[in-house]
């Protein structure tokens, strides 16, 4: 089933990047979006002698201004029939009268900026490229890692089931694996080692996520070549289960191509059915999920709302609701700690 409104994925362009796509271009993950350059060691280009001018006179005859990107052999200054030209493509930073030289930052080709997603380019400016992505987006609460793509593999049957490391093997290489509640440091390490593209779970220990992000950062500084890998927690930190509605939706879309944008804490599932929607302030009769406090991750029905504020376990007085959980229990929960779980957007 096709997604509803496409997701607008905005890619910022660094200074000096040149778009390599146009509006209407179709892109796939890994396709070039923009050509980039990087500066190399700065050089000083003598100006006074070639122009036969005194240092203080050169400023008035410059033909470029500071910050300009100049092409190879572009004229920088002219005095009659004498010129000074750029030796290569560069940034013209300044003319320094003290030394009588121009300060240039030569540029060389760098790695292209590549697409993380599949879609159609809908806008190109000098600062951003926006791609319309035919995918449904789930926003998470914690994540790390670059963009990774692969088919969804659901490894458990229960939204409260954790990611068992023994279920992870090399057959899952290149896939995005999904479990219910949480993933241990051991499971994360094992998944990365066998070539899994990424992990999506309901929760993660904040400490494990921070440790893993730190490890990734250190590896990148060392230049240690490793396939990209991302982790995403959809609902919270700890060991709570995933929102049952979201889990059921992921199960229904097993096998679909997906992309985790770890650092942006998002999961994109291509060509998926519309996902369940969360909304604040459920009303009596709404299905909801507990998003904070005891019972986080559990779903149920809002049966009743208190007329007056009531004290919760911490002693804070707040509006509460009686929730009939899917497990059969009925609990009182602060209304600020629940969200309505609507079937589709």
């Amino acid at each position: 089933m096709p997604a509803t409104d496409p997701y607008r994925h905005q890619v910022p362009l660094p200074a000096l990047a040149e778009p390599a796509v146009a509006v209407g271009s179709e892109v796939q993950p890994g396709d070039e979006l923009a050509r980039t350059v990087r500066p190399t060691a700065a050089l000083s280009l003598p100006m006074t002698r070639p122009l036969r001018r005194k240092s203080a006179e050169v400023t008035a005859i410059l033909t470029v201004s500071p910050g300009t990107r100049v092409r190879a052999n572009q004229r920088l200054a002219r005095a009659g029939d004498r010129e000074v030209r750029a030796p290569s493509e560069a940034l013209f930073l300044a003319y320094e009268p003290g030394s009588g030289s121009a300060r240039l930052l030569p540029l060389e080709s760098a790695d292209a900026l590549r697409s993380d997603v599949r879609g159609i380019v809908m806008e190109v400016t000098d600062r951003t490229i926006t791609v319309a992505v035919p995918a449904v987006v789930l926003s998470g609460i914690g994540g790390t890692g670059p963009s990774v793509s692969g088919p969804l593999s659901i490894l458990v049957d229960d939204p409260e089931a954790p990611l068992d490391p023994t279920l992870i093997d090399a057959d899952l290489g290149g896939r995005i694996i999904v479990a219910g509640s949480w993933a241990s440091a051991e499971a994360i390490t094992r998944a990365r080692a066998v070539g899994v593209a990424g992990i999506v779970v309901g929760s993660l220990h904040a400490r494990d996520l921070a440790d893993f992000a730190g490890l990734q950062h250190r590896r990148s500084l060392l230049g240690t070549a490793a396939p990209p890998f991302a982790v995403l927690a959809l609902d919270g930190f700890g060991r709570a289960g995933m929102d049952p509605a979201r889990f059921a939706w992921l199960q229904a879309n097993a096998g679909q191509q997906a992309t985790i944008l770890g650092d942006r804490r998002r999961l994109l599932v291509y060509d998926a059915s519309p996902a369940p929607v969360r909304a604040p302030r459920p009303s009596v009769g709404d299905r909801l999920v507990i998003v904070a406090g005891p019972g986080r991750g559990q779903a149920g029905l809002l049966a009743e709302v208190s007329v007056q504020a009531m004290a919760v376990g911490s002693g804070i007085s707040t509006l509460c609701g009686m929730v009939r959980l899917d497990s059969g229990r009925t609990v009182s929960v602060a209304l600020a700690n629940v969200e309505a779980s609507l079937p589709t957007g």
Partner: protein
Amino acid sequence: MTTLDPVSVVADAAQSRPAPGPVRAPTETDLSLLLDVGSAWTKAALVGRAGGRWRIVSGTAQPTSWGESALVDDLVGRLSPHADARLSRRLALLVRDAPRITSRSARRPGRLVILADTQAGLDAATRLSQRHGWIVAAAVTSDDRRPEPERFEALRTAEPDAWLAVPGSEADPAARPMWGILAAARRTAGAPVLVVGPETVREPFASLFGMTTRWVGPALDGTVGDALLAILADVNGVPEVRLLAQVAFGRSMTALSRGIGLQILGVDLGATWLAWAPGGDPAHNALLAPGQDRALPDGSRTATEVLPADVDEFAMTDAMANLAANPTAIPSSPAELAIAHAMGIDRLAAARQAMGGVSSVDVVVGGGRLLAAAPHPADAALVLLDGLRPPGVTQLALDPWGICGPLGTLPGDEVDEGMETLRDDLLSPLGTAVVARGGRPGQLAFRARLHRTGWPESPRVDVRSGSVVVIPLERGGAGELEIELERGVQVGEPHKARRLRVNVTGGAVGVILDARDDPIQLPTRPGDARTVIQSWRDALRREGRQVSG
């Protein structure tokens, strides 16, 4: 006319419950709605005129994401049982159509890139910008010894809301490679460039960077801060700076200080922002953005070390991460509440360090949901005391309804008028705190006796170093506290006198005698530390005293 018992209003305010009766609904329908729209919570207070006086008749707080309709419904629901039957059918409409005074938190901090000639210039610019709601996304100095390619790479991916240029000399920027790097990284039609330096650089920078360049002044002072606030408001879609909640809070503290003639420190501890407002010195107001690592005072314990509950490390970091990721969430257990309060103490302590300490003031006013919704006023008092360690003798009060922000948005002198108009309902007094420094743990720090005109002589109270003791004194009560200091113990500024007599006022907690030094000393063993921390909480919650033998 609506009548409310003012003591009931104040006593219940900290519990976020509406005032009880007896109430008669107004036959006139003068109402105003004061709204403080925070990043996580919106606080609303309905103000009505009764007998020629404006009073708060109802109030509530809800997650901002719930929207206005739910907020109005809640207010109407709280007011309906007390309203005159003749108005009941119109009440919802009256509340919805009531004139509003609204303050609004910025959705996000500003992102700034700073280029300065010197590291000293960069440090000063960084401090100034951080105090005005900005984070520094990237920074370059001409003396940072980095090669130009590296400087350019640092700037090229920044997507700032503004650039701040701090040239230290009058040299033409076109002759300085660093400014060429700025021009290249910024691209054409980029974010505005603010220039702080000699006036002689004004023209050259305008020539280099075009129409969006603004020379702000020769020094990194309040003028630059005002310029940054204006851009911050613009970036956040707030039409005027004074409508920013944290700026408005500062204005209200200044007005309050003028109105009551006392030195005030206001701290609004929001879900994301922290407003710091020394009411007697508005030039030092600060709006501190979230997510910045700030140092705690030397010797301070971090939040993770001051929990009264036995919480394992994973559970603690998870709870902290969940609270940070979901700021509307309500702590649902004693452990979560302790963690939330510990995080608040950390934030206040770090802000105190960043702002150069807390001077001796007459009143500390605490705002923000963490304090206003505290289950017991003693909890709020402890957060303020532990986070700020206000020296000397200080009255503590809360802004329970969250109306200081909205009142602070009023233009010009109307702020003073607004604060005076609602003076009776504005603050919820917690009492007076006496914070002593020095002394040896477990040894006697000072003795205190409260004298009240028309009351029997009260017993003398012994306060040992490392302990906190409360002398009951109700709201509206006042007295003179006689203090006898032991050697090595100081209250406020150091002085030779060992005996002091200070005026104190009462509140929801009373007179708090705090001999825990600064920074607070804790036992090194975690179990012992937890026991001691719990004992402090119990002491503040219990109107108790120690009596000398």
